[in-house]
């Protein structure tokens, strides 16, 4: 498993993916910095409808690298791009690898040596480990960049409904990243298992982005337009939406926090059941029919 992970990590495209993911975070930092500049311009303007005390506090919160990281992780659009980029990378370069190896007969050697069950476990484990490391490295790079750029202040700052300390901010960021890693791990198991049944390499490479990003987004958007009352409920099960549950905890009232956590829990449980079933079916079928 570790050998497989090392194999993926040493490839050039993995580091390209890390660069793209970290770059998304740096773009977010740039936007946040622009917001700070805009606030400073307002401070210097002679506008008479400005609460300068509050404005001063807000500007001082930007002197903390953690503010930039949290703004990225909790502020919609660019985080969606980050997740989508990770899913595209996983699909293009990893989840379809088993199918490619089967097609070019390299897989036959592996199955002959270690058996299909072991190959599936090692490949999936290696890919999950690799994508987790990619996400972790990119987040650490973003955080380090933000801290160098904005500096460190051990202070309490306002976020959503709460006043949070530096330690709590780190925990929120960590929670968000771990939740994303769990999602990516389940997505990887499903994609690897399903790609063997698809048998078409191009389709197998596109499967993760189609099944976990595009189709849910199009369906959610259509349902929300056709049934405005219930559409929003279905939208909670779009991966990009429930991956923002950590944000919901910061911005929602306690009652809505519960609903949000229950929906995210239900979605992840559903993905787990699908992942286990897909892996089981895959192992059952290809333990017999692989070679």
């Amino acid at each position, binding site marked *: 498993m570790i050998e497989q992970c090392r194999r993926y990590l040493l490839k050039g495209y993995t580091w390209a993916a890390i660069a793209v993911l970290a770059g998304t975070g740096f773009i977010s930092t740039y936007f946040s910095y622009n917001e700070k500049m805009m606030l400073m311009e307002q401070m210097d303007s002679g506008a008479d409808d400005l609460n300068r005390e*509050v404005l001063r506090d807000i500007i001082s919160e930007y002197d903390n690298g953690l503010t930039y990281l949290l703004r990225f992780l909790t502020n*919609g659009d660019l985080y969606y791009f980050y997740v989508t980029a990770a899913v595209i990378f996983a699909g293009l370069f990893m989840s379809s690898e088993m199918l490619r190896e089967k097609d070019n007969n390299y897989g036959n050697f592996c199955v002959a040596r270690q058996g299909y069950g072991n190959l599936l476990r090692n490949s999936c484990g290696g890919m999950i480990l690799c994508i987790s490391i990619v996400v972790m490295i990119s987040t650490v790079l973003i955080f380090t960049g933000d801290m160098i750029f904005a500096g460190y202040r051990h202070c309490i700052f306002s976020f959503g409904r709460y006043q949070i300390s530096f330690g709590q901010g780190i925990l929120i960021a960590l929670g968000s990243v771990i939740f994303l890693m769990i999602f990516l791990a389940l997505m990887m198991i499903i994609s690897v298992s399903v790609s063997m049944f698809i048998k078409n390499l191009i389709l197998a490479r596109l499967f993760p982005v189609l099944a976990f990003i595009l189709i849910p987004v199009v369906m959610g958007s259509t349902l929300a337009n056709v049934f*405005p009352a219930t559409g929003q409920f279905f939208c909670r099960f779009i991966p990009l*939406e429930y991956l923002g549950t950590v944000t919901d905890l910061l911005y929602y009232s306690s009652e809505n926090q519960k609903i949000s956590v229950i929906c995210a829990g239900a979605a992840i449980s559903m993905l787990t059941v699908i992942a286990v079933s897909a892996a089981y079916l895959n192992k059952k079928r290809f333990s017999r029919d692989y070679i």
Partner: protein
Amino acid sequence: MSIMFRQSTIKKKTAAVFILLAVFFAAQIVYAGCSDYASFTLHSDDNWVWKTTAGNHLRALKETNSSKYTVQANVMTMWCDPSFRIVNSNNQSRSGTVSIKETGTVFQGSDNIGIRNYYYYASVKPSSWQVGTDKIKLRFNPK
């Protein structure tokens, strides 16, 4: 017997009227400072929109110097979350942004740098993920 029955009916009606009035005034207190609902039409290529679908602006009076504000949508046809902020009459930002994730929930925004006794206006921006045209109907309270 019939007089007693009539008196009891009058008492019930009076009580019902008082309860209705109490609820009405309580609602006035709770929603004091809150704007009416207004619809915004958002196209995917729009930036910040502060004109409602009807062509006017949605405004509310700020009654305290609180740095918080709230926003609540009751109709929303997009799956992705549009951003909301409050602006002054020159369309200059007076708050941080908050994502409106669903209908019915009151979302609290922060970084409200407006001051009391001024009118502030609603400004909405579609998510980068929005495709085509969507509608959102919302109200806000600059507090």
